[in-house]
């Protein structure tokens, strides 16, 4: 039995016990760094008794790009493209999280309009991340059709990003203090059009898989983990919510105006692959409802600025730079990195696609951070993978791996 964070007991199924028979020869199988099922590069050396997995040893670091060392060399607004490449399926969430960390450091006051615009972008990013993960769970169990439907929706979201920031995947969206330009009318039109067509496509995708006998047989019971083991392993995000604990950073430590929104937190019961799939499915619907509420709230707000008043960090508009001495000096100082940055230590967490993405920033007043450490959810929960697949068959291990949504960029940083 396990207890969630409100003290009520919840059912939990322990992992299947494997009898260790001595004097048995186990075979070693290398689920190598390049493998169609591992989306990203990480290696698992599996010790198997026939088809059942007895033990496994993961090796990571095949795409270690030294983000933390690189951050010590870059001024604050040049770190945003680096944060893009953490969880690259939902890079706007990483960008916004970094901007909010710096705004916490400089104690900037962000207008409500900017907060709601940021929520729209972050929820669109969450939808793209969950769509990739769910369609890839299906691909790994052999169902390729959902993948094709779902990626068409991602193209629509990419078009929205392109209208706002110019890039599709690694967006570098927004600036410290807000957005670089107001959303053009074309972006609003595309968002509205997306909101109209998305529910029908998602329902079609659900009909393919949610009550599909084969999919359910493949995924129910595969890679189960109990809530107290998950909490001890530091799980956050959909993987933790699938075990029954309703921990969501947007509710526990609200940021960027999430406290004004009304949304549910879906939880599962067993913590197995089917629950993770269903939790992500329901979260897509919740994100859709949040975007709808944000659009309604933005209509009611008066027309306002699309950025906060932080002249030390936010580039002034070009007309003023060419005509006004003060704006020219600010522009020079920001681009050359000569602004005065307060000292301090900040930890800020956002709800990324995989869980609590934390930014721990130590600033010593210089133009680059003294230390910036990312609390990456994938890195922390991938440790539990050997325990989750012990006693399962090899094909369950593959489906478990893709349901955990391990993104290599976030794993290795």
């Amino acid at each position, binding site marked *: 039995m396990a207890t969630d964070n409100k003290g009520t007991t919840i059912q939990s199924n322990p992992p299947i016990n494997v009898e260790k028979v001595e004097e048995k020869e186990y075979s070693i199988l290398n689920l*190598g*760094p*390049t*493998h*169609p099922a591992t*989306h*990203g*590069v990480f290696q698992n050396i599996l010790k198997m008794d026939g088809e059942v997995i007895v033990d496994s040893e993961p090796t990571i*670091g*095949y*795409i*270690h*790009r*030294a983000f933390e*060392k*690189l951050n010590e060399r870059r001024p604050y607004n040049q770190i945003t*493209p*680096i944060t*893009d*490449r953490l969880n*690259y*399926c939902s890079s706007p969430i990483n960008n916004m999280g970094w901007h909010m960390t710096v705004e916490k450091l400089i104690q900037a006051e962000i207008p409500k309009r900017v907060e709601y615009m940021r929520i729209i972008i972050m929820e669109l990013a969450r939808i793209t991340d969950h769509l*990739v993960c769910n369609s890839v769970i299906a691909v790994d169990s052999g169902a390729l059709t959902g*993948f*094709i439907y779902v*990626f*068409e929706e*991602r*193209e629509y979201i*990419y078009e929205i990003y392109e209208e706002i920031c110019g890039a*599709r*995947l*690694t967006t570098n969206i927004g600036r410290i203090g807000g957005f670089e330009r107001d959303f053009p009318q074309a972006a609003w039109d595309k968002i509205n059009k997306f909101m109209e067509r998305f529910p029908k496509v998602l329902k079609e995708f659900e009909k393919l898989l949610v009550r599909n006998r084969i999919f359910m047989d493949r995924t129910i019971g595969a890679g189960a983990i109990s809530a107290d083991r998950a909490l001890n392993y530091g799980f956050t995000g959909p993987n933790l919510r699938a075990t029954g604990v309703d921990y969501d950073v947007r509710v526990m430590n609200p940021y960027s105006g999430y406290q004004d929104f009304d949304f549910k937190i879906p939880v599962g019961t067993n913590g197995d692959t089917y629950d993770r799939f269903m939790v992500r499915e329901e979260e897509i619907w919740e994100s859709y409802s949040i975007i709808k509420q944000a659009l309604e709230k933005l209509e009611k707000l008066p027309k306002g600025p699309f950025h906060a008043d932080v002249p030390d960090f936010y580039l002034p508009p070009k007309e003023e730079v060419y005509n006004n001495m003060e704006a020219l000096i600010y522009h020079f100082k920001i681009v050359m990195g000569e602004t005065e940055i307060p000292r301090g230590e900040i930890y800020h967490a956002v709800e990324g696609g995989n869980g609590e993405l934390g930014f721990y920033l130590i600033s010593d007043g210089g133009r680059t951070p003294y230390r910036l450490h990312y609390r990456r959810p994938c890195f922390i929960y991938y440790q539990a993978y050997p325990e989750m697949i012990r006693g399962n068959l090899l094909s369950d291990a593959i489906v478990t791996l893709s349901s955990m949504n391990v993104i*290599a*960029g976030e794993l*290795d940083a």
Partner: protein
Amino acid sequence: MEAVKSKIEVVGAPAGVEGPGFFATSLDNVVGMARKNSLWPLPFATSCCGIEFMATMAAHYDLARYGSERLSFSPRQADLLMVMGTIAKKMAPILRQVYIQMAEPRWVLSMGACASSGGIFDTYSVLQGIDRVIPVDVYVPGCPPRPEQVLDGIMRIQDLVQKESIRRRKGPEYKAMMASYGIE
């Protein structure tokens, strides 16, 4: 009545001698045409460029039109090694091993800035370009490149495949280039 101009462009046949029931051309042309329209790629996806490749493979920018319907994850059955994403120094020996396991004729497409030259990661742990360990045929720049750029890269590979002589891989220049990489 005017004939409606068809929008479909038909590719002309290669240069050759034609007659009733036969068409004679050089073997290079035929082999090149067959090979270029049936390249089986090996997607060696490591990071963000891999997601753009998945978008290229999906229905909107369909890669299957170019004959790459079947992605081969086994190097023994692949023609085209597409390296997508950053290659760290820990990964470089594995990339080399996968390249060595591929059978001739094989081509390499390096997608993205990180694979071509290390990209924005000028650090101690990132390999500054995969051409330090394997020979590369086409580089596609971008971070990540748009799917149209990737398709353009595939079309440049197709040009290379079409024009390649079938004796090239046994010749001394090719062997010297391979020796410079330490691959026999």
